[in-house]
């Protein structure tokens, strides 16, 4: 089978988890001898040659093609209102403000040129890039007619998937890694929601990364449950990481590592920390990462008078992330809404016991972890205290965690994906 796949990023040039997941999936498909044409807005040239890569920035658009008219119109419309800013994490936000490659005012030139240099990032012209990407997808679908099925990852590539389907008539599978509800809570960005919804309804089948996400699709996007298959993510490497890095402080360390935003529930971690410290002052809590709630968390920690026991590291890069996992005695992910959440698996790889919220997709696959409701700070404090003090349970988690990782392989995910493809094609004919 040959799959025409639309993504937004691919390792090593990634800024989020989407690229990593695409990489794992393509690798898994390779394992099962499936061919993949992988399209990204911008190729850097140092990607691992796992697929037939297409650089969208290199594709020339044939503007005489009448069937593209609809996508052009979309673009003209968006150009006028391209001040739309989708949800951005702190790291993306920095790129967003730094980025000015496409800061054009010359409408004629940018709309009617037949090649377009994508940034492939999450910049302020994101909406324009998304519609441009659809145009490129239409062109690719017209030129390459040797694929069997189309697969688009997350809303950024949904318009591309829709366009490719309309031009080629081939079935479309959309893959939902996160929804606007996960990113923004109830205050969704309407244009983003509209694109997500359009993609899901245009699709022949939908893949969701967790049952949790599937429920959101059914409840909030009006998708029939029978149209959605749950495929949990996997890990690229299930080996246990033995770090040489040593802890410099005598106390045990409890860690939160992630963006400090509403979605990740940092405030519940802070409140739970206070409860633990009141009982046992010989613990250090660390909040690693940055985000729009960081300052509020600092204020709260100061207010609770525990700043010599609760530390902030700011955004961690490279080795520091590994070091942080390595010196942690407990890892906590109190996410309010997490479609999947790959970080706890990283913690397990470092042999660190984890506590995860029931509102995370990863809770559906990770059995040897303590699961609490994100809002239940008493239960969270209780779990932290137990993992710090009762050797038995943390030892058990360490032993079983690595076993569990071995089951989470991309090959298994890809195998299931192939059956999804086959079923979708069968339903078509």
């Amino acid at each position, binding site marked *: 089978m040959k799959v025409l796949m639309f993504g937004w990023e691919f390792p090593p040039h990634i800024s989020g988890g989407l690229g990593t997941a695409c990489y794992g999936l393509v690798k898994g498909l390779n394992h099962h001898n499936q061919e993949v044409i992988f399209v990204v807005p911008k190729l850097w040239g140092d990607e691992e040659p796992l697929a037939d890569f297409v650089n969208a920035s290199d594709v020339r658009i044939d503007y005489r093609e009448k069937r593209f008219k609809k996508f052009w119109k979309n673009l003209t419309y968006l150009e006028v209102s391209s001040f739309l800013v989708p949800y951005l994490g702190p790291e993306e936000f920095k790129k967003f403000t730094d980025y000015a490659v496409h800061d054009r005012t010359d409408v004629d030139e940018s709309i009617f040129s037949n090649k377009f240099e994508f940034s492939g990032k999450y910049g302020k012209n994101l909406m324009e890039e998304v519609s441009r990407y659809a145009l490129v997808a239409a062109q690719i679908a017209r030129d390459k007619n040797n694929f069997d099925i189309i697969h688009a990852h997350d809303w950024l590539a949904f318009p591309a998937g829709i366009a490719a389907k309309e031009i080629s008539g081939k079935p479309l599978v959309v893959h939902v890694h996160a929804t606007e509800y996960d990113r923004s809570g109830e205050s969704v960005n309407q244009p983003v929601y509209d694109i997500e919804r359009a993609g899901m309804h245009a699709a022949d089948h939908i893949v969701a990364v967790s049952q949790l996400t599937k429920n959101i699709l059914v409840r909030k996007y009006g998708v029939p449950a029978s149209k959605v298959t749950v495929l949990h993510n996997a890990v690229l490497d299930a080996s246990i990481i033995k770090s040489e890095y040593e*802890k*410099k*402080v*005598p106390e045990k360390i409890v860690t939160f590592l992630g963006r400090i935003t509403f979605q990740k529930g940092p405030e519940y971690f802070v409140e739970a920390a206070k409860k633990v410290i009141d009982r046992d002052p010989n613990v250090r809590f*660390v909040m690693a990462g940055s985000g729009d709630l*960081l*300052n509020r968390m*600092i*204020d709260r920690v*100061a*207010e609770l*008078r525990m*700043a*010599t026991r609760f*530390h*902030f*590291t*700011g955004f961690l890069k490279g080795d*520091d992330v590994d*070091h942080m996992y390595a010196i942690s005695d407990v890892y906590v992910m109190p996410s309010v809404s997490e479609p999947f959440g790959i970080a706890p698996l990283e913690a397990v790889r470092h042999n660190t016991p984890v506590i995860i919220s029931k509102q995370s997709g990863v809770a559906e696959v990770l059995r040897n972890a303590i699961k609490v409701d994100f809002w239940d700070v008493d239960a969270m404090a209780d779990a932290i205290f137990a993992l710090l003090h009762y050797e038995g349970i943390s030892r058990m988690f360490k032993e079983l965690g690595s076993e569990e990782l071995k089951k989470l392989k991309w090959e298994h995910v890809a195998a299931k994906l192939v059956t999804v493809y086959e079923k979708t094609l069968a339903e078509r004919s």
Partner: protein
Amino acid sequence: MRTICFYFQVHQPFRLKPYRFFDIGEDHHYWDDFLNRNVIRKVAQKCYLPMNSLLLDLIHQYKGKFKVAFSLSGTFLDQMEAYAPDVLESFQKLVATGHVELLNETYTHSLASLKSKEEFHGLVKKHQDRIKELFNGYTPKVFRNTELIYSDQIGAMVSELGYEAVLTEGAKHVLGWKSPNYVYSNAIEPKLKVLLKNFLLSDDIAFRFSNKTWADYPLTTEKFVKWINAIPKEEQVLNLFMDYETFGEHQWAETGIFEFMRHLPEAVLKHSNFSFSTPSEVASAVPAVSKIHVPIPISWADEERDLTAWLGNDMQDEAFDRLYELEKAVKKIDDPEIKRDWGYLQTSDHFYYMCTKFFSDGSVHEYFSPYDTPYDAFINYMNVLSDFILRVKQKTAEMQDQAEAIK
């Protein structure tokens, strides 16, 4: 006798280096030597060296009729010794003329007066010793507390140490209808005189000098003398207190601040009946008109003239309380490095950087802070303090072990 009393504050903190969570328990050097050295060298070139030489010229020129006072913080003395011996030498020359007075303060420009009398006295004593050592046995008679922080209680603590006078802000909410241009006395210990800063005329030089939107811009010596001549005859003392960095650093040389100061003594001595005096001369020559009641501490900072630049928000209070919790333990430890760091961590600037009064005087705070936000300042300080706490604990445990071994 009508007189002008100039006092200049010279202070530089030991700024912390970026100290990360991963450094806790391992790295015990907290100070940003490179940044601190650079700041001292930069300010030396722009302010200390040219202004010291200007003052020396004026003192020689007016044969003692022009005089000033300085308070040099201990953290400044230490950094000057390490990074700018040329500046130290120029201060020593000024003091040697006999027309420059030095004041005492807490050694590390600390807020100890608000927390612990014992620590406060210890830091003052240390400053006395250091001034004596560096300036040929000089013994100050007048005290100025960190950032001119003062209250009746603090005045009483100062009096206990034998000082004749103390300097503070002529804060509006304390003075009410009264004028700062008199000598007052402490409400608890009347023998301690209190000199109040005239913040209008001081700030005309220190803050507004180069402000082109100010109605009285540009400030000339003629204008300034006209203003002081307009002060009611019975008001005797005009206290002009300011940061020394006003000259050449806050107000650049290009603004004409050096020219202004070069010609001010001549204009004052020729066209008014004001003379120049040092704080101790004022204290011994001018009787106090009344007591001044300051039940709640005041300072010379920000619009509010209170303590909110250093204390009051949760971050500042947390850092301050966690630091002074260590006092007893540190007192028992005989380790020069722990003693030094304990002092330097008390410097008021660390708490100033954590101030979140973004709207009133935020831009002034930002100008002085090496951090992007008060939150960064807090995180960095607490990381350092966490390491310091570990060191104190470790030393205390070692000492207990030794004591038991002796038994």
